[in-house]
């Protein structure tokens, strides 16, 4: 056969465990060097490298199937990885399977956290870089543009991105349900552990500006406050200052209740019209469960958040079939468009290159 072939080669969280992905991952310098090397590889007409924490994938248009093996060799040599070992964890597709895979990746269907949208930006960035360096042509330009369109279509016509699926993001979403914009919400983090820090960062990523950290060890609170760009507060001040906060993330390792009902009652008397949201991530729990009975007080513990995250995840999984069917239709249509170009070979691809450049 004289035509070109479309392939994807790499490893993802589906095919390789974390320890292997760590060895396969490319830092920015190594990725640049590899791109430069591949740009000079004979028979590789077009390529894009997508590298994230969960996947490393080479999308390519090659003169023949043997070029994919050359790409693999170049990568393995650079990463000091034996080809035989790589093949144990390898993802390797060609033809229309490449299209379905890329469309699913871009839509977040192939992500570890199903339906996440960050991957869309990562693929777009990878494609943008390849395009800027002149590594893409008529085929990959069309393929990636169509993949982005398909991802947007899936996001708007299905519920694949609805609801948060991590505990920290569920907590942030609930806070949004109570306060709307988080820009003016005042947040208190009780405890300076890892889970509290992650949740605080999730709040900050959603625009929360005013964050305070209180810990029984003030120096630890100050340390974390500095990391987060927050204020540190002595722990003993919490009952006095509670009324000044809207959201309290509790993540201490205290053996007993830290926030009692009388403390909350006192705080709410000073702010009766403004809701107070407790996110109790501690085990044993930090907040007296009875505070939830108080008007304008909302309390969610770790089990509540995990259950909501599980429900959201199940809802996304229920959409998977519908999303795949939508993408399969688009894959078939796209393959009908690019197959003649691949069959015709480089002359047609290059002749139409400038016409298929994205707007």
């Amino acid at each position: 056969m004289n035509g070109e072939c479309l392939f994807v080669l790499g490893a993802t969280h589906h095919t390789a465990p974390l320890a292997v992905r760590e060895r396969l991952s490319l830092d920015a310098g190594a990725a640049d060097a590899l791109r430069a090397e591949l740009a000079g590889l004979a028979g590789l007409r077009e390529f894009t490298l997508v590298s994230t924490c969960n996947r490393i994938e080479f999308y390519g248009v090659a003169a023949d199937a043997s070029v994919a093996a050359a790409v693999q060799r170049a990568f393995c040599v650079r990463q000091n990885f034996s080809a035989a070992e790589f093949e144990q964890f390898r993802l390797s597709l060609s033809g229309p399977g490449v299209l379905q895979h890329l469309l699913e990746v871009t839509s977040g269907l192939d992500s570890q956290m199903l339906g996440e949208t960050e991957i869309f930006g990562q693929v777009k960035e990878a494609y943008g870089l390849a395009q800027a360096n002149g590594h893409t042509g008529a085929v990959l330009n069309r393929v990636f543009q169509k993949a982005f369109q398909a991802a947007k279509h899936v996001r708007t016509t299905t519920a694949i991105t609805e609801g948060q699926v991590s505990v920290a993001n569920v907590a942030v979403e609930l806070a949004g349900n109570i306060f709307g914009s988080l820009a003016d919400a005042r947040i208190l983090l009780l405890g300076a552990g890892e889970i509290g820090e992650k949740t605080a960062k999730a709040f900050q990523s959603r625009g929360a500006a005013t964050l305070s950290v209180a810990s029984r060890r003030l120096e630890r609170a100050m340390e974390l406050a500095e990391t987060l760009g927050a204020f540190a507060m002595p722990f003993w001040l919490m009952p006095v200052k509670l009324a000044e906060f809207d959201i309290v993330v509790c993540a201490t390792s205290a053996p007993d209740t830290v926030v009692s009902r009388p403390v909350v009652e006192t705080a709410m008397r000073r702010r009766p019209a403004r809701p107070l949201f407790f996110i109790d991530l501690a085990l044993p729990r930090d907040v007296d469960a009875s505070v939830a009975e108080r008007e304008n007080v909302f309390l969610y513990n770790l089990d509540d958040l995990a259950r909501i995250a599980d429900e959201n995840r199940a809802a996304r999984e229920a959409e998977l079939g519908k999303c795949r069917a939508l993408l399969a239709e688009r894959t078939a249509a796209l393959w009908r468009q690019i197959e003649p170009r691949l069959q015709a070979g480089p002359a047609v691809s290059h002749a139409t290159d400038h016409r298929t450049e994205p707007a």
Partner: protein
Amino acid sequence: MFAGLTDRSWLWLAAECYLVGLLLGTFSLLRGRRQSGAWINSFIAAGYLCQVLGLYARGRAVGGCPLGNSFEILQFTAWSAITLYFFVGVTFRLSLLGFFTSSLAATLTLVSLAIPAWDATRREHIFGGNPWIELHAALALFSYGVFALLALTSGMFLLRHYSLKSKQPGGAFSFLPSIFDLDHISVRLLGAGLVLMTASLAVGAVYWLRDTASVNPTKLLFTVAIWAAYATALGLRLRGVLLARRFGWAGVALFAAALLSLWPVDASRHSPVAAPAGRTVPR
């Protein structure tokens, strides 16, 4: 008639547009999808246009603001609520408010159209040719439109509050605005409605003081009672006594009471005469 259609035909068209908005929203919610605001707003706008034409035709036929029977009062209240929705919806961009507003407008307009007896007769010359009295009535009913919207935001608040307290924030609940935003807009609507109603009562009081016999005591009693109830609700809210769920219930209950008070108020007015023949208002 206007453009070949009777006033009631225009009002039927309006009700159908509101109904389509309601059905579209319900369909989206049942599918678990985010509402298509543009579509719902288009149907609300189309319904509003038809309603304006219908009320205009009726107003021209009766030579004044069409507030002469229960049918006209409900139509005017729905029109007021939609008018206000265009301001509140655009300013605050509250998710699902369009759906709830089209639900309310469809209910009020369809019920009023479905009961012909409500439009069989109408009180003539209820304003005695006095534009100030007409303004008094229009302001009072416009304030009811504001309170209708308040009832909607209060209902939405109660739904959101329930979803958060019962720890079921997903499904259709996830499309509701935040309770903070709903509470905020509810307080503003209560204030705005009360200002309008106070202005209406102030205009009416000037004429009542001149001739106390001109106003039926039943009407006076119900109107002042509704005003006092809303004023008390606002006072208690601002003092931090009537909050959250209780404030939400107050918004819903007071509007139900305000709507029910329209019947004794309407019935207590002058003796009715026949409505425009065949309910087709001539140009």
